[in-house]
């Protein structure tokens, strides 16, 4: 298991993975190809869960779009993710926030973790070496 984790780091070229937890509000900058053109699409919402580990890890983001709940699952190490902004850090008491699906409006709010220090909320993981 340890062995395959070390290989995963070598074969996946993406060096920086953003750091966030479930309950955080994030904006995912996702690259979309239309023919030869490439543009960035934003998806802002609450992180419901992070699932899996290593190169296969994914995260689920939920937002309300036009009164309808929309969830999208992103692979954490996807090269299509240009970046992930952490807009708010939430205070939640569980790792998987499935209960948000049944709630709307005021009930779907999450307590915000206030930053009293000036430290930047986005902490980036140390880069992993790339092997050709």
């Amino acid at each position, binding site marked *: 298991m340890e062995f*395959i984790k070390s290989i995963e780091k070598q074969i996946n070229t993406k060096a920086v993975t953003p750091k966030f937890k479930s309950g955080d509000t994030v904006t995912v900058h996702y690259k979309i190809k239309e023919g030869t053109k490439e543009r960035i699409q934003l998806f802002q919402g609450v992180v419901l869960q992070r699932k899996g580990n290593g190169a296969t890890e994914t995260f689920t983001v939920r937002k309300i779009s036009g009164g309808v709940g929309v969830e999208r699952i992103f692979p954490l190490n996807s090269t299509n993710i240009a970046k992930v902004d952490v807009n708010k850090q939430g205070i939640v008491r569980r790792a998987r926030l499935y209960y948000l699906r049944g709630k709307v409006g005021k009930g779907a709010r999450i307590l915000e973790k206030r930053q009293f220090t000036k430290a930047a909320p986005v902490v980036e993981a140390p880069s992993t070496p790339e092997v050709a």
Partner: protein
Amino acid sequence: MSGLIGKKVGMTNMFTEEGKNLACTVILVGPCVVTQLKNEEKDGYKAVQLSYDEKKEKHTSNSAIGHFKKANTTPKRKIVEFTEFKDVASVTVELGAVLSVGDVFAEGEYVDVIGTSKGKGFQGVVKRHGFSGVGGATHGQHNRLRAPGSMGASSWPSRVFPGKRLAGRTGGERVKVVNLKVLKVLADQNLLIVSGNVPGGKNSYLKIEK
């Protein structure tokens, strides 16, 4: 057909530059030692015998020790023959030559992988042969959901034809998966990364052909 012997490490995924998420298998390949060169005169056919994976001498029979000594190497666990072995560029294939993954495989090539599939025990026809079962689960149907159905015609031939597909031991057999793309060769660590899946569990031996 050139190739090498390897061992399955496990599966993971890999992202390409275009953003594609590919499932891939990591295989620990070689270094393999040429332990015998079979020829037409003596053996009746041409083949290259490769050996892989260290083995303790105390677990090896004397005749096997002698066989490995001829190739000037230590005892090995897995011995595989390759017929019509094509020459590789960097190493001459002779008795005692050591072939590693970088010598034989390159990124972007297509390989075939042969292994023993995972044993699944005694299984019914639905899992074993892909039958669809009889009837439905509802409308008063009972007990027939995964049944094999008819065994054949009646008064003629009054018997079941040989080869009729029935329930039985499944898996644990030789399986060949063809045309797997080599996604990466990590020559310094003897690793080969191919797209898709290969037969068998972790640490099972695989024959990789090109």
